[in-house]
């Protein structure tokens, strides 16, 4: 068992951790946390961050009254501060058979690394992290906890995960949206090879629940370039049959469709203030997360 656990730690990308862990990854929306943290809260509370002055209403606690303002203006004002709380990060990883594609690292392995590293980072900054494995059956859910030992638990689940079966992404996203009562960060890691409209509905549903939604679309180099020359039988990994075709003849059309699909998800994300990241598995995890953190800083500054 110890050996096995040690091997799962390799899912944590050391380079990313060393580069990113200095600065917190913030959410651009206010979060409803249980303890204080780095993220904005919809509630006012004790903090160093000034929020506003508000006129005193009888019945309120006179302790929060600003006596200096009373001395200058002879009126009763309350001085309010921003409440800062932690966030609940739900990491959803797609484990359908299509995620098993890719060389030298398949998309699922890449997703595992990305998930584990993100979990470590968020736990490190005091946030609660949970895990949802999106599978046809035997889906696993780890509720959000901010206990540092949560990393171990997440790695124990991620480690043996295998990509198989048809995707259940849309339904799973709706379930996550419904099950998460408090607003939080929903990170979805998938190839998003689904119909466009259901994806849009799922994203909208998550956003309607006030969640900060982050999508990572993982694509293999071959899926992006489609550089096949000879006639090829393409066998669907999710059991949808096979196609014999001459790649040279359909290459242009395929690339066009693929691009349109990613663009459509991106556009919808922009519309509903979700974040979309298209990632090639050729990129290192640190590059991906570096780009992600830079983007987060930009939108939260």
């Amino acid at each position, binding site marked *: 068992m110890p050996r096995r656990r040690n091997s799962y730690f390799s899912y944590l990308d050391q380079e990313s951790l060393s580069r990113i862990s200095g600065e917190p990854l913030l959410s651009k929306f206010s979060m409803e946390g249980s303890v204080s943290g780095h993220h904005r809260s919809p509630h006012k509370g004790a903090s160093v961050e000034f929020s506003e002055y508000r006129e005193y209403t009888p019945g309120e606690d006179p302790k929060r009254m600003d006596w200096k303002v009373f001395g200058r203006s002879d009126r009763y004002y309350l001085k309010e501060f921003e409440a800062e709380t932690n966030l609940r990060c739900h990491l959803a990883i797609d484990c359908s058979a299509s995620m098993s594609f890719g060389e030298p690292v398949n998309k699922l392995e890449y997703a595992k690394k990305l998930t584990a590293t993100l979990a470590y980072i968020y736990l490190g900054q005091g946030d609660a992290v949970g895990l949802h494995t999106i599978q046809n059956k035997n889906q696993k859910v780890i509720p959000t906890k901010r206990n540092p030992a949560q990393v171990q638990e997440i790695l124990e689940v991620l480690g043996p995960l295998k990509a198989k079966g048809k995707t259940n992404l849309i339904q799973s996203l709706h379930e996550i949206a419904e099950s998460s009562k408090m607003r939080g960060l929903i990170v979805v890691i998938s190839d998003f090879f689904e119909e466009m409209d259901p994806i849009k509905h799922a994203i909208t549903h998550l956003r309607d629940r006030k969640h900060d939604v982050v999508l990572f679309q993982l694509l293999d180099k071959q899926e992006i370039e489609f550089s096949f020359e000879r*006639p090829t039988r*393409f066998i669907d*990994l999710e059991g949808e049959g096979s196609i014999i075709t001459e790649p040279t003849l359909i290459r242009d*059309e395929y690339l066009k469709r693929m691009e349109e699909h990613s663009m459509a998800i991106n556009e919808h994300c922009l519309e509903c203030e979700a974040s979309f990241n298209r990632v090639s598995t050729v990129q290192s995890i640190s590059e991906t997360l570096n780009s992600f953190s830079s983007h987060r800083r930009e939108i939260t500054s």
Partner: protein
Amino acid sequence: MSFLQPIALWGLLLALTPLIIHLLNLLRHRSQPWAATRFLLQARKSSSRISKIKRWLTLLMRMIALACLCFVIARPMIGGNSFFSLSSNSPEMLVLILDRSASMDTGANSNLKSKRERALEIFEQFVEPWPESKIALIESVYEEPFFLSEIQALTDSNFEDFTGQTDTSSSLARTLLKTLEWMKKTQVGPAEILLASDMQRSNWGGNKSSNQFSRIDKILEQKKDLWTLKIIPLTSKSSYNISLRVNKIARTKESIKPSLTLKQSKPTNPLNSVDIQKSLNGESENLNLKISSDYTKWHTTFNLKKQPEEGWGSIKLNSSFNKSDDHYYFTYRKNSIPQVGVLSLDPVIENVLRSAAQNSDGEIAEPLILENLDNQNTTLRRMVIQQGAIAKAVSESLDKFVKQGGTLVLFPPENKNLNNYPFLSWQDLEERNEDQAFTIQSWSKEDGVLKNFADGASIGLDYLSVLKRMVPNQGEALAYYGDGKAFLSKFTHGNGLVYAFSTLPLDSWSTLKDGYILVPSIQRIMLESSSVMDSSNDLICGSEETKNIFEYSCIDLPEQKKPTLHAGVYKINGKLTAINRPLEELDKEIFTLSDLNSKLPNSPTLEELNESKRSTFKRSEIWTSFLYLCLAFLLGESLLGIPRQSNRKQMKNV
């Protein structure tokens, strides 16, 4: 549509290659697990129609381009002046078959140009409108085709060896056949073939050429739409000419006596005399000879006193009408009793005949060794005595020997079928007993080999008793039996003489063995054959023998002549050799156009060249059209392979 190289049409199967490669590629696809099948399906669905059309169009264009290439190689032809021919209607090749026989240098017109020169002129004018066509010349001496880079080469003096005057004969059927076979082999397309000849019948070979004519006929029939054969008319009214012919040359110990005939043709205004130049070993003597209007027979003598034992001589007419028929050359060597060879399978007969043929030195004649018959030593024998069975090859050799001027004395075989000479046959064997033996009744006592001796005594033929006889069928009888049949016959064969006895020098046949008739008659035949000029070294100009002479020197003229082309006296292999023109070149019989057409029944009717009516080929080649089509389809295929601009942009964005 027809094809010049139909075998290339098998290449059309190659046109299926792109399709086969395409299908093989589909069969040889590799399997690839794939996640984004959704997009593949969408891409195939939306691009399938255009892509499929594009793909099949590409395949089709490749296949058509290959098919067009095959058609280009197969050289297709279509009828008439087609739009598709895309080229001028010029023949691919213009071929001149030039008869260079001696008779072609007889004046063809009132001007001094010979028929040969006139033919070259006509051909030069003929090719003028077709500067793009290739020009080939095949002349009758070497019969080898060669191309002319420019038509002016025909009259170039450097080209004299191939277009100049010769003393040769020609075999036009063979030359024509060689030309057509060469053209067929090199797959010549449309061609104009002009035959320039004075159509002398002897040049067409008679019945011997029937096989050649049938092959010519077959080729001309096959190529009737492609090739046209025309005759340049050169048989127009002939101008004045005087020719010299040597009939016989007698040789004695101290003189040479040629017997000649001079013939004037077209004697409307005949000459009364002609200048003749006699030369012996380079010393010339000019004579003026009075001649009659038609034929003139003339005998002259070359005195060999104070002359070397071996030498040469010539007789020339000082006329300028035709240089090919006004001269005769001869050589002579030491005159001696000829060597005699005896050939008989019966040793008794052989001994008797060898003894009878002993020479003036008392040496008896040698037995003839069969193996040596064909070598040069045998050709020096001036006389052969033969009896009995004989193989066909030996009879052919003896036939050749006689034709060249040898003398053959024949005795009957035991059976009439045992020897079969092409020139002699025997009657059935007749036998009588001693009481009723055949006897000779009459013979020529004043002249010939059975004449009386100098003292007037008879040769004694009336004492001859013949028990068996086999009478020869051919020849003039020199002595007759009582029943009128010939005892001894004589006839000429080629340049030689044949004597045929009707009985054998055996006791069972006759008393000929006693010698009183046999010895003087054989000795007289030997003497007669020695007076015939030995011309065994002499050759006919243009013959196969002269074509194989490579080392020679010309004796009679300081300028260099060639034994293949010109008559004269040459030193070949150290021996003096006289080379004369073929006698048949003096024959005036014409092989008419209708004669020629009758020999070629299946070919298109041959016509004489008519300048105003040039050939329009019934069929023209259209390979250029297919070449352009091939290029067009290859271009189309390339254009189909270029990606659309919008696609290129998308790819760039990705």
